[in-house]
């Protein structure tokens, strides 16, 4: 693989464009339009749905190859981390607690 600066620039610009457009178009148009109430209500459920959708496979399944996996360390650590987050309401502390428990779990398993 021998790519020049120009090759890289061209490839990354193309990738950048198709990354930017999906982030830009809805915001650019919807921010100046009166959104219907049903859309606002629906969109208010999008964050929780996206977060769950991003998180769930990493807790309940393996990636290579994809299969269901109960009792992964990720899931076992997620339970106390979740409880800690509900009690503390602090993202920074929750991240650190999660990392610590995961590191601790890794020593024993």
């Amino acid at each position: 693989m021998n790519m020049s600066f120009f090759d890289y620039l061209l490839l990354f610009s193309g990738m950048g464009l198709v990354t930017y457009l999906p982030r830009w178009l809805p915001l650019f148009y919807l921010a100046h339009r009166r959104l219907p109430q049903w859309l606002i209500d629906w969109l208010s459920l999008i964050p929780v749905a996206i977060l769950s959708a991003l998180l769930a496979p990493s807790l309940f399944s393996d990636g290579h190859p994809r299969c269901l996996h109960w009792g992964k360390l990720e899931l076992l650590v997620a339970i106390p981390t979740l409880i800690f987050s509900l009690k503390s309401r602090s993202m920074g502390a929750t991240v650190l607690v999660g990392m610590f428990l995961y590191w601790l779990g890794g020593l024993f398993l």
Partner: protein
Amino acid sequence: MQAITNKTQTNQLLVVMQQGSHQEQPVQDNSRPQHWFRKGAAAAWPICLGYLPVGLACGTLAQQAGLPFWAVGLMSILVFAGSAQFIAISMLAAGASPVSIILTTLIVNLRHTLMSSTLAVYLQEVNRWFLSLFAYGITDESFAVNMTRFRTGEWNRWQALAVNHLSNSAWVAATTCGALVGQLIPQGALGMDYAMTGMFISLLTFQLQNRIFILTGLLAGLISVTCYLLIPGDSYIIIASVCGATLGYIIKRRGRK
């Protein structure tokens, strides 16, 4: 009910922004840009911490795939999309064509249309230059952090912009460092691999306002795992988000009648 709170929040936000733009308003500490930046930084640091291991891993992989460090930095600046960059690197290593890499990037990043639409609710009537600058930094992480704060009404667009750009800087720095020294760092040091998961767990708990939100989260998680196992690729995220939110919305409507 949700409608009213949303609207009042948007109004409060507009008031805050108008106050911010008038110098003759009583100068409170919280109307100064430095204060906003500090607030933004306080919200952004867990993202930056999470980006460190992921960015290092990304840079290390890129270096192993034969990319020079400046190309890694250039990619992070121009693209700024973690999962798409991982995929692009493995495709480059496999000798894929630029067109197929760009198309894959588009598909992987389509989910951001949903996030961008959701943010539009809180950025009504904001000028288009700001929106264009803001859009660059919309990622899974910055979206979740900003939405959580916007919803409580204590957030303004400058704080949100600070979150976006601070996380971007951290990502560029982490990936470039990964390409330079990534191989010297032991894998999984200090539970770093869990930083991102921990952050998503925390953000998820902030979203659980009532039973409808909990139900939506459970449904989206269930659909996500199912799609993840059945459909190759990254479509599981967008399918599960749309289906989960729609089911939650229908249940909410049913309950109201």
